[in-house]
């Protein structure tokens, strides 16, 4: 199979993730978009590991997974704390800081 397809798929995934960040108001969904972007990268890493015959890429994907998990922990903590204060997690809440 043409590895280019994987690249295209990864790019699509990345774009979808980025679009989610841009368009969704819900903080959790936006965050999921970011996770999607990370996974797009994982796909690339694995693909290129295969194409280039460099095993490191696959290992790297694991590292990314771990980091993503840690990110989730921190991210959810922040979102939850905020949801307690504000009673919602909409990103379009009137902002305290701007300008």
């Amino acid at each position, binding site marked *: 199979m043409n590895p280019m397809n994987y690249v295209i798929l990864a790019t699509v995934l990345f774009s979808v*993730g980025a679009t989610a*960040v841009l368009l969704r108001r819900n903080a959790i969904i936006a965050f999921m978009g970011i996770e999607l972007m990370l996974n797009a990268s994982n796909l*690339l890493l694995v693909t290129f590991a295969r194409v280039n*015959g*460099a095993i490191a890429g696959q290992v790297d994907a694991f590292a990314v997974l771990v980091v993503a998990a840690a990110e989730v922990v*921190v*991210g959810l903590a922040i979102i939850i704390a905020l949801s307690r204060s504000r009673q919602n997690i909409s990103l379009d809440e009137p902002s305290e800081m701007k300008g």
Partner: protein
Amino acid sequence: MSVPSPVILWGPLVPVLIVVGAAMVGILVEAFIRQSAMRRLVQTVLALAATGAAMIVAFLQWAVLKGDGARIAGNYLVSDRQSLAWQAILALFALMGMLLFSSRTQGEDAFTPLASVAPGSTEEALAAKRGFAQTEIFPLGLFAAAGMMLFTMVSDTIVLFVVLEILSLPLYLLVGLARRRRLMSQEAALKYFLMGAFASAIYLFGASLVFGYSAATSYAGIAASIAAGLDRQPMLLAGVALMLVGLLFKLGAVPFHAWTPDVYQGAPTPVTAFMAAATKAAAAAALARLLYLALFGLAWEIAPVLWTVAIATMLLGTVVAIVQTDVKRMLAYSSIAHAGFLLVALTSFRGDALAAVPFYMLAYGLATLGAFAVVSQVRERTPDGALGAEATRLGQWAGLGRRAPWLAAAMALFLLSFAGIPLTAGFIGKFVAFRAAIDAGAWPLVLVAVLASAAAAFFYVRLIVLMFLTPAPPEFDESVEVTNATGPWLVMLVAAAGTILLGVLPSPVLELAHQAAILVP
């Protein structure tokens, strides 16, 4: 297929290990010492000792370093004079940051006593009354510091991503822990986190693309493949551009700067101080290494990007800072402008820049830490007479020079250093930074930089005007209180002494910086 087990030279990692170790001990301390005051004391001592020791060890390493340095963990990490210089600087910033973390006035520090409860709730009030303290801030800060120090040694794109997260994640949390204006603080944390994660993801995607092109994640490997390949595949270029985004984000460069003002304003001031100085330094260090080691072959392609970003950063930072009315936000925009000045040096792709950038960051970081230390001392008084949040509205600083002459004088000194007035560290920093650029023929960039500096002076000076030349309205005697906590005073003293010393007799430090202008591939 076998994965070779990496040979790790532990020696050069000692500064980082000290800080990481202290952070871990700190977590244990959280678990085992119940008494709040005792815990706090232990954490404070531990944090200060660890960062101090890290700085000393970094210097010792410098002394015993053989040759230019070495790879210490395969292709992943190197230790060279450049990284040691950065580590020393970062350890210093961390030490000063921890001093600010530990500072309390009237028994209260800048952090919320209980992060888990909602702002304004009875639990919060109770926690405050019982004198709870969120001592996790120290391990968190140490983790971030350790990540930053590690950041400067990284020579592999994926490791860079990992370390980026190591240093970022604790910061995301720290930003949200302000005692007062908690909503703002939490909002800042969320923004920082989302934007940071977003930027990391972009970076990672770029790194993956570059991996696809060069089949390597190590800087050396990437550089080799760039050198070998004559064609410039879009995949490589796109990957490189995306990677840069990640680091430019941390640096606070336009258009990846949007988080900066909000986070600087919302975060607890000690965190802002630490982050503004240290994160920017770490990002600059990593960016320099990435650009000069991995991407040097692409200098021709990358330069326009850096030029564009640098110009946009300097101009936007300056222009928007002029209209700010909040001290912390103003300093945030000023930090954006400074990121631009830093980029001016980096665009040169010359060895000089590697000496200029650490010096610049040292000068900038000292002034930043000092300035935020001052900010943390100027407080509002609530109507019931208790000490409130920081008085960050510009107007509240009117007449400070009369009420607290030394504090105001120190602030003026830091502002002058930001503005790059001679006999302050900021001037020498600007000088070496601009010189690197001019030597590379980038004088139009420098011209923009000097004009931006001149415009920037306007808002630094405006604050000085407020402090010294504007009489305070009488009600300020009631509503604005200048406190005298030890930690910020120490930070201020160190920062002021450093600012003057680096401005008047910068020679020894410049000499070290020159020696540090070496990267081990």
